[in-house]
């Protein structure tokens, strides 16, 4: 009994490693939300009129909405007037290269182990670093430009490619979609934009690191990825945030569009925002809307996520399978401990013929963590020959946590096939003792078992992310021997 309990205690008591605050001058507006604030944000960003119009429509629509309460999560009501809706680090001068970036910020990235200098020299990962709300540095843009790939901050895209933004912004997640998407649409401050032209295979993994840094700042990121016919892109998103007492709201929107035949977008996330302390105090509220649209025939959108942070996660990366033979995938690991709550899953909407989707969800609950899988598989009448396979596995560590599964399946076509498998298991004392008896300490045994449980999902991550994900779960690397 006690060995297993000790492990859980250790798990639970692990301090958040990334709890530090960067001391950078910040340009912050007063807390609160109104039409004036929306106008101010738009003006600060020097946006064209269509953007302001869109933001205002979103804001007015948001006013008519009520915060959703259907999710399996409990938290005190959020005071939206207490949040700050715009904060940007003040650059000391116009930035031309990394050398000019605030050294404090660079130090922050060093602490996170994602130093831009290093990144630049190494693996060919282009990094668009978002600190608070404004992109600070973009690397590799020249190399990308050679291939006609646009990869820049959202603000820059609004200035340089307004026609693309106007055409695609909100085309997958309209501002009317839900409460948090409407809020984001009204006040989003920055994010990333990516455009891959016809037939181009993006020569490197694109990567963004988000970080919430100003106390009491709601952060509203917006990512838009548009890939033309036959294009391929792999996009990585990694998140760490410093330690804060107040709960911080994060409501991002990510839109993916696979336009033509055989277009492929792969989107991977590793999220380890501050989960709150061991008594459930503090932590990020992560209420995100992520959706992709497979418009072209045989196009493919693949979501992979490793969610280990945030006090509350509310997130359902989804795929609209519109093109015939298009493919949607969702691979997820969600870990909750202490008082963390995660309600996450996916929606696969089959519209085109012979569309296929795969859902692999792994939920790990420890401490008093609550983990819910919520997924919808919808096969419309038009989707003849559509197929779905879903697998939802839950792993419990200790006896105070919970796992919940809410699968919604809606099939309107008789020629389609839907499979759903689910399992719940517990790390048993017998398993721990067996490992101990072979010389493996309890913490290592737990890591080994958790890592094994998540293997199917880690396999989907790009190499450098898989390593980070395994580290994040406190897991020793599982070798591929044999």
């Amino acid at each position, binding site marked *: 009994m006690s060995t297993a309990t000790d492990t859980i205690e250790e798990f639970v008591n692990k301090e958040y490693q990334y709890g530090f605050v960067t001391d950078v001058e910040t340009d912050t507006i007063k807390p609160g939300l109104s039409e004036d604030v929306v106008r101010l944000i738009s003006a600060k960003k020097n946006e064209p009129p269509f953007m302001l119009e869109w933001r205002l429509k979103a804001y007015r629509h948001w006013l008519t909405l009520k915060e959703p309460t259907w999710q399996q999560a409990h938290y005190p009501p959020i005071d939206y007037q207490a949040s700050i809706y715009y904060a940007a680090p003040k650059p000391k001068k116009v930035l031309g290269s990394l050398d000019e970036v605030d050294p404090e910020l660079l130090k922050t990235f060093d602490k996170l182990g994602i130093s831009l200098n290093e990144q630049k020299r190494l693996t060919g990962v282009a990094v668009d670093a978002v600190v608070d709300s404004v992109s600070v540095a973009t690397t590799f843009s020249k190399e990308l430009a050679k291939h006609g790939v646009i990869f820049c901050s959202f603000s820059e895209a609004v200035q340089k490619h307004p026609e693309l933004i106007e055409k695609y912004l909100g085309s997958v997640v309209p501002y009317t979609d839900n409460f948090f998407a409407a809020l984001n649409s009204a006040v989003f401050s920055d994010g990333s934009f990516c455009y891959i032209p016809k037939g181009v295979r993006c020569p490197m993994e694109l990567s963004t690191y988000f970080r919430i840094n100003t106390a009491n700042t709601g952060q509203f990121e917006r990512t838009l990825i548009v890939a033309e016919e036959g294009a391929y892109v792999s996009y990585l998103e990694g998140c760490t945030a410093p330690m804060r007492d107040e709960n911080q709201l994060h409501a991002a929107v990510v839109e993916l569009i696979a336009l033509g035949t055989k277009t492929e977008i792969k989107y991977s996330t590793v999220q380890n925002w501050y989960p709150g302390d061991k008594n459930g105090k503090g932590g990020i509220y992560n209420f995100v809307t992520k959706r992709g649209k497979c418009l072209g025939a045989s196009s493919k959108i693949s979501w992979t996520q490793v969610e280990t942070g945030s006090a509350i996660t509310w997130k359902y990366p989804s795929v609209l399978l519109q093109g015939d033979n298009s493919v949607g995938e969702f691979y997820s690991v969600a870990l909750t401990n202490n008082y963390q709550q995660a309600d996450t899953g996916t929606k696969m909407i089959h519209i085109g013929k012979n569309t296929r989707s795969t859902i692999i969800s792994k939920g790990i609950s420890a401490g008093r963590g609550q983990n819910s899988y919520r997924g919808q598989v919808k096969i419309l009448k038009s989707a003849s020959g559509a197929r779905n396979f879903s697998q939802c596995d839950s792993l419990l560590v200790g006896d105070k946590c919970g796992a919940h599964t809410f699968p919604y399946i809606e099939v309107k076509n008789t020629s389609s096939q839907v499979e759903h498998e689910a399992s719940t298991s517990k790390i048993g004392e017998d398993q721990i003792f067996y490992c*101990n*008896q072979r010389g493996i300490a309890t913490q290592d045994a737990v890591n080994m078992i958790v890592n094994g*449980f998540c293997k199917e999902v880690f396999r989907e991550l790009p190499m450098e992310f898989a390593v980070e994900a395994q580290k994040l779960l406190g897991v020793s690397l599982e070798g591929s*021997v044999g």
Partner: protein
Amino acid sequence: MNQPLLEIKNLQAGVENKQILKGINLTINAGEVHAVMGPNGSGKSTLAAILAGRDGYDITGGTVLFRGQDLLEMDPEVRAREGVFLAFQYPVEIPGVNSTYFLKAALNEVRKHRGLPELDALEFLQVVKDKMKLLELNEDLLKRPVNAGFSGGEKKRNEIFQMAVLEPALAILDETDSGLDIDALKIVATGVNRLKRPDSAQLVITHYQRLLDYIIPDFVHVLYNGQIVRTGGKELALELEEKGYDWIIQPHAAA
């Protein structure tokens, strides 16, 4: 080198309020094979579990020294690294954890503890290949998760295979013969016999004499009602096979 490998003195233990072991005395020297036999419920598996350090038992008296050190004070993983190996009666399945990875981690923990360099994947595979032949195990088993979906016989052979890789100083075989057909039994016994070394010892716990046709013990102990009631040579096992346990336990049951 006259220090015994294992020295159990007056060991008393139980669960909650039930006393199971009522004063066990047993000394094992390097190079010896000991068999502990006894009817169901006599405390055989409890003895194995306590030596390996399984949680949930109250130790109420006595001492256990392993190479002169207090074994009962050590965490189970430390005992394993020191060279105490338990072949489980019911090997545990660990889904998702690759057998090769598991065993490599285990071996490297043992090597680290002994101040030896860790083996890399290639060196480890070489060790494994040699030992697999010994147990006539299919290499495919190593690609599967630990014990997951193994047959009863495969699980038992896998235990002895792990023992072969880890080279323990004291191997405790807890009813390794149960659930094995005669062919598997021979393979397991042959494996165990080949693993005998002058500097190590084996403690074979069994209900039936059958296994002892193949693993020849130096000493046979009869455990009954939490105590060793008789100790003899290998012929004692044969006598038990012939006459059953009653003739030994009768006087103790009456007492």
